[in-house]
């Protein structure tokens, strides 16, 4: 009986500390110190409307925009997901070759031209916001032609390393 009492008291106390006190404390500090991030790193347009989160990829189909990595869950967010197809999956092989063909077509490339691996293989989260600078430069000509922009200018925006596709596209919209 005494053991049960100790069990209940210990469980209740630890639940209050770790299940109520702890998340509330972290939320309180986060709200003051890192309000932008704590609320989901949201970005708004010039008119104040919510455009998305800088951390979550959006689907882009128009030639005027850079395209992110493919999403096996079609950019769904609740929940997002991956293909979970393995190294010897015939289904994955087919998807990859379809994506490569579509990319070559969109960029006016010959049938066996190489395409960046990350643009034909879906990310783990289905919401990967980044692509490599190489994968962005692969799309440079298409985007600049569609927008009538100077390639050197946009290439400078891409920079080196990794690019956040949504932020890059947002910048493009402010340019033109």
């Amino acid at each position, binding site marked *: 009986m005494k053991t049960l009492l100790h069990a209940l008291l*210990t469980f209740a106390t630890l639940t209050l500390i770790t299940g109520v006190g702890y998340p509330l404390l972290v939320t309180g500090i986060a709200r003051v110190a890192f309000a932008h991030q704590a609320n989901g790193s949201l970005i708004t347009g010039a008119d104040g409307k919510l455009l998305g989160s800088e951390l979550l990829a959006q689907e882009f189909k128009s030639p005027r925009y850079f395209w992110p990595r493919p999403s096996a869950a079609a950019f769904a967010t609740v929940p997002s997901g991956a293909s979970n197809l393995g190294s010897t999956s015939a289904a994955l092989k087919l998807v990859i070759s379809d994506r490569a063909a579509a990319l070559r077509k969109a960029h006016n490339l010959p049938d066996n031209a190489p395409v960046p691996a*990350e643009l034909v293989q879906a990310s783990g989260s289905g919401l990967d916001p*980044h692509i490599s600078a190489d994968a962005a430069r692969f799309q440079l000509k298409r985007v600049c032609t569609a927008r009538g922009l100077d390639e050197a200018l946009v290439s400078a925006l891409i920079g080196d390393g990794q690019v956040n596709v949504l932020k890059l596209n947002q910048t493009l919209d402010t340019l033109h």
Partner: protein
Amino acid sequence: MKTDDVLELLLYLALLIGLAPFIGRYLAWVFQVERPLPGEKLMAGDTSRSMNWPQYLKALLLFHGIGFVVLMLLQMLQAKLPGNPQSLANVPFPLALNTAISFLTNTNWQAYSGEATMSYLTQMLGLGVQNFLSAATGMAVAAALVRGLGERPSRSSSGQVGVSPADSPCDRDGREPSLRPGRSFSGLGNFWRDVSRATIYVLLPLSILLSLVLVQQGVPQTFDVFASATTLEGSAQVIPLGPAASQIAIKQLGTNGGGFFGVNSAHPFENPTRLSNFLQCFAILALAAGFPFMFGRMTGHRRHGWCLFATMLVLLLTGLGAALWAEHQSNPSLGVLTMLEGKETRFGIADSALWATATTAASNGSVNAMHDSLMPLSGLVALVNMLLGEIIFGGVGSGLYGMIMFVVLTVFLAGLMVGRTPEYLGKRIEAREVICAAVAVILPSLVVLIGTALSVLSEAGRASLTNAGPHAFSEALYAWASAANNNGSAFGGLNANTPFYNYGLSFAMLVGRFGVIVPTLMLAGRMAQKRIAEPGPGTFPTDGGLFIVLLLGVILIVGGLTFLPALTLGPIVEHMLMNNGRTF
């Protein structure tokens, strides 16, 4: 590999090796301080009162029972409870049962996606709390076992086993002087004291720190309702939010692994940057790596603690090397030079391989890349890490007590070789102790093999598989290996939210947890009552290179003999067929 990847891996290992002794020292302090720390008396009365093994186990089971009821109620009533701004429905029984057992056993297998299934209240007050408590329980059991092994009993006048005043201050290397002389006890410590100290003095402060860094890096921490955005191309996008950072910090530190979001630490909200990735990945192993040193300090056998750490490190580095090599190979089946399917650009290949190795070495189970889409041989590394019983650092606490079961077997085998009664840390190992260790090693393995067989033989088992060919077999094997060793990661193609897997894997998780904890505590209780003999000429030394080699041999032979056929049918065959360009 790129230079920055190499540097990052070296930094990771240097931090792990450099900090582990200090973490171990702190852990030893937490579990040894005699005076009651604030609040202990209020919760559990006289916590200096030590328990024998049945008492310790009873307290542990009672604690789990209460946790189970609360977690079931929170899930199955969440629609009526507050803290549910998305108005999510009640969780159906089989899924709620699976999830409750999963979080109680520190497995954190998830047959659901958090953002679409669990209310904020359920995540925070149910799952979040069990992230702490299941980890603290593992730490407590480890502390109990260490006390049992290091305890120096003596006969008091009443015939009870206890520490006499002359014995207790024998403080070689800070050996435990804690428990009051003259009381009746068998030296395993007090469960309530251990579990609350592990929570409040170890897990909580580290979680607060880590969660704040994670928020700064971009992990949400809010109770607001999901946001609705209109994308640049004009379609609607729901932005899932929640008190994520606080849960993700403890999920990593407590080797839990259950994601706030469905895709776990691959989600940009769960793991937004390379820095957040490094810290989360480090948190997977950091505490567990301290336990061998805690063991060394508390028993006074520091060199032996180093040997256990070295053994774990050798296994970790072997797996890491293999996974890195495998991920840097091309994939002829798919005709791609690098396998990026299921991986995130911001992490890349090396970070994904490191995480996959660490999360399966420790019984964490969080992922930053989809394990189902790993190359066959890095999938093999993940499987082997789990199948060896989560002893390569392993879960916080549970990794140590799992490893000690192998040590007991090793010492026993060494004793057989020279024809002497084996001793461990000066205490004789007898038939009962060997049985305890063997049961703890064999039970989870048995569940893995039988469960996998049932999966591939039954319609209900096969219906959940996404992939085909040998990879389908790996998918089933991975699920049972993960559940029965309390890891929680998955080859995610497996549709786990079916009655077959919800009930079957629940059973596996229970066996994986209590099938090891019960024999561990029993062994601890028996060892606590044994006298310590001075080492003689026939004593097998447990603090040198020979011991490490022998221990590695036992681990690999036991693991190898048990699982080699299954691993051959899965990832090994797949690797060969992939190199021949086959698809399924």
